[in-house]
């Protein structure tokens, strides 16, 4: 834009996003909650890496964190993880799109199948954890 054009262009009032934009709608608020549940999850997973490293040094060096505070933190992270998984799988109907016999598969069926696979995978992993821990 030339200087003359810039002078003749109308002055517009620029948009400024308010800092508290996420409190202005219930939808925005839960979106932010969904996104921030990933932070404690990441912290917990980082700690898991530390535990794995310790376990690699042999049973003598392995001392898992078992304080009450860590157990409470783990339970909270589990709830966040369930919430995050629930929201993610609920959105699968919007993300996945494919056809069976030239007909589009309904979003509800896709979401249900995701939850079913989640349940099966959790069951299989749970079974192995219990079986290996015996």
């Amino acid at each position, binding site marked *: 834009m030339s200087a003359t054009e810039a002078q003749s262009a109308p*002055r*517009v*009032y620029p948009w400024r996003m308010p800092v508290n934009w996420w409190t202005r709608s219930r*939808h925005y608020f839960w979106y932010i909650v969904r996104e921030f549940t990933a932070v404690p999850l990441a912290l917990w997973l980082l700690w898991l890496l530390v535990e794995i490293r310790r376990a690699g040094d042999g049973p003598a060096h392995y001392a898992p964190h078992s304080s009450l505070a860590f157990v409470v933190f783990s339970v909270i992270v589990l709830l966040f993880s369930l919430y995050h998984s629930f929201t993610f799988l609920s959105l699968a109907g*919007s*993300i996945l*799109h494919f056809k069976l016999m030239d007909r589009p598969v309904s979003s509800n069926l896709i979401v249900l199948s995701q939850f079913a696979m989640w349940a099966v995978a959790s069951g299989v992993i749970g079974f192995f954890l219990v079986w290996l821990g015996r």
Partner: protein
Amino acid sequence: MPDKRITINATRYDPEHDEQPRLQSYEIPFYDESMVVLDALNYIKSHVDGSLSYRWSCRMGICGSCGMMVNGTPKLTCNAFLRDYWPRPVMVQPLNNFPIIRDLVIDMDDFMHKLKSIKPWIIRKQEMPLGAGEHRQTNEQIDDFRQFSECINCMLCYAACPVYGLNNEFLGPAATALARRYNLDSRDQGVKQRLPVLADSEGVWECSFVGECSVVCPKGVDPAKAIQQTKLDTTMRFVLPYGTRE
């Protein structure tokens, strides 16, 4: 109902005199249950204050011109009934996330550039001669893209998108929905021309799936779905380069 009245608080901004937008209150007669917010603005313009500026055209939810924030929610003012707000006052503001030119009129240049960038028209590698006849499509092929073709470019989805509000480099919901509309069209061969814009870091990957764009769409289009499906498609094109559709 001759005595029924409603208060309209409308944003006023005169770039030559005002440092920032302000609200001005108008109390007008609410004489008909079928009155919409646009009728209220037209009443103000005709009978109270002729200097109030806003866009409108069809009054039928087709042209997409009269989108504004009504009590904080992006709406077509021709489709927002006063009876749903009365007796509370109605606050009418310009669409969020856009610069304001005057009063309720926003600067839509950014959206128009983005719309053009995704080439929202049918692209053919080689045009068929007219004598070859029309491009035929089955109902199933039309169903693939039909909902995305309902977009009227009203920009309510942009006003609802906090990602666009925070970063206006983001391609945004409507432009992506329209790109998807053409990419899914069996007559179109322009996917590869749109891909650089869609798969750019400011394209679909900027979206973090707030989903509010689909909630506010007055035509039932699901731009969030278009964006997520485009993410999947661009990934599959990267992973399976030989499986791409020309």
